[in-house]
């Protein structure tokens, strides 16, 4: 049979973020797949070297829009290790609390996306509605729905009040009720089971060999979780189970994430109950002494690692970030092999890919002028309008007519 090569992406309706997959097809089946990434590369690692440690916290937080707290925690943990800082117990608990609430919103988001990719949009509507509960809690605790800005070197920036803790307990009760229902759907709904089973299979051996992480690996029977294996923040004080499944397919990955949600509710309850009193920060020096540290964090998508090298000044010498999606990508090519083309969206979505995380990083380029330089928002907007106008798409007239219409009314 003739083989046909199909490019999917970087801009494609089935992908939520830019990535390019070259799929070699034999009939309807994928014979071979390769990935091209980098469309979201923003130069964050280089930018970190040119900014102070405090500025870098906010920069690395913007590596990802979903697991922002994962990156800022991994970064501050490394800096604190170099500076020899011991954060107060209350700060460790608050960090963990935000981290687990973030996991809830991330896993619920994934469940919705997965539902959408297999044509089960009711699940998308349900989970994303319920996700608002945890988004509201995060907004109440930190002031933001994402990019919480809670971490600082030596602790956290905001305390939690007893009323907020009570709100968390109420929200968690509601979410647990809903998640029980989703688990019932996932384990009893025959069409969903049939749609997800044996799709995107990755053997245990391949998961180990290709270095898969997080729920992707745990659904292949790899019993690994940084929260238990390399405990940080307050995880050593918590009692929880690592969810492992042996289905090794998209169905297994769904069960692992649903199971993890239930564990997370338990963890949040323990954190609320045991929240120690006391300070939330220790004083951190502006200049960090020379040294290096390697920090690991179990992000919703898997192990997130940061390496920081300090040179004694107020700016780091080097910051290296490896987000979980990059570790999972080698496995994606393997998972796609021998699957139907129509399964590609859910197979890719099943690792919960986050290409912004993966690509990270600086130069905004003005190709026409041949110079680099940051663009102001207004300039960028004008540039976009001009770009489209040159290609025959002009809304300025429409905007004027719309303004006139509004005046009349």
């Amino acid at each position, binding site marked *: 049979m003739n083989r046909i090569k199909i490019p999917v992406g970087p801009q494609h309706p089935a992908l939520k973020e830019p990535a390019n997959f070259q799929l070699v097809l034999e009939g309807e089946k994928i014979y071979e797949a390769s990935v091209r990434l980098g469309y979201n590369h923003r130069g964050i690692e280089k930018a970190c070297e040119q900014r102070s440690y405090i500025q870098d916290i906010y920069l690395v937080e913007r590596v990802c829009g979903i697991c922002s707290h994962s990156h800022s925690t991994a970064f501050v943990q490394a800096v604190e290790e170099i500076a020899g800082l011991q954060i107060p117990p209350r700060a460790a608990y608050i960090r963990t609390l935000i981290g687990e609430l973030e996991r809830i919103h991330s896993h619920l988001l994934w469940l919705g996306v997965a539902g959408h990719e297999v044509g089960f949009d009711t699940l998308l509507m349900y989970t994303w509605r319920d996700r608002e509960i945890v988004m509201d809690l995060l907004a109440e605790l930190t002031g933001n729905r994402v990019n919480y800005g809670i971490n600082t070197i030596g602790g956290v920036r905001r305390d939690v009040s007893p009323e907020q803790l009570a709100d968390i307990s109420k929200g968690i009760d509601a979410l647990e009720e809903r998640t029980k229902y989703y688990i019932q759907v996932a384990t009893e709904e025959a069409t969903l089971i049939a749609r997800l089973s044996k799709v995107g299979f990755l053997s245990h051996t391949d998961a180990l060999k290709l270095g898969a992480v997080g729920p992707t690996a745990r659904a292949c029977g790899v019993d*690994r979780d940084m929260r238990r294996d*390399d405990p940080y923040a307050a995880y050593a004080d918590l009692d929880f189970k690592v969810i492992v499944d042996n289905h090794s397919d998209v169905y297994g990955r769904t069960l692992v994430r649903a199971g993890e949600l239930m564990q997370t509710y338990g963890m949040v309850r323990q954190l609320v109950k045991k929240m120690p009193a006391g300070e939330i920060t220790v004083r951190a020096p502006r200049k960090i002494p020379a040294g290096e540290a390697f920090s690991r964090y179990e992000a919703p998508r898997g192990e997130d690692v940061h390496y920081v090298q300090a040179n004694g000044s107020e700016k780091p010498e080097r910051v290296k970030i490896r987000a979980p999606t990059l570790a999972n990508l080698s496995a994606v090519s393997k998972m796609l092999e021998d699957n139907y083309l129509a399964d590609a969206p859910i197979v890719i979505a099943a690792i919960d890919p986050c290409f912004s995380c993966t690509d990270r990083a600086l130069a905004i380029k003005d190709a026409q002028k041949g110079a680099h330089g940051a663009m102001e928002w207004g300039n960028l907007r004008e540039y976009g309008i001009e770009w489209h106008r040159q290609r025959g798409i002009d809304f300025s007239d429409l905007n004027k007519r719309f303004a006139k219409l509004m005046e009349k009314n």
Partner: protein
Amino acid sequence: MKEEEISSQLAAQFPFLAGQVRIQRARRLWVEVSSDNFMDVLTCLAGKMGFSILCTITGLDAGDSFAFIYHLSREDGTVLNLKTKILKTGGQWKSIGKLFPGGIFYEREIADLLGVKFEDLPPGARYPLPDNWPQGQYPLRKDWQALSGSAPEKREAP
């Protein structure tokens, strides 16, 4: 203590590493080896000693040389950071794709951002810079400035 056990095990395997292992804290070990001994030490760590997980590879611009840190982990969460250096004029460095197939992306990233050439890196798309990135521009080198160099050539959409 398991960290000290690992340290003495390594020293028993490789006498030149006696007293060279730095234990920074629980579950964090650091060791530097010469580029000639690197492959032997890595193979031993990844095989016999159970450091079978490659978390990532960090590439560093260390003046006249490149430094690489291989962050290796065991199933119990212990991390050994294996560091080595090559001269910038020395040319090529070895790919560890055979031992860790998942490490190829990390090597491509170092190749793109630092300009290190890897032997036996399988053919494939570059990562993460765009295809029309100007040649000889390596953003993570210390002497690289965002304002230097020419803009990428303009290409029409296919």
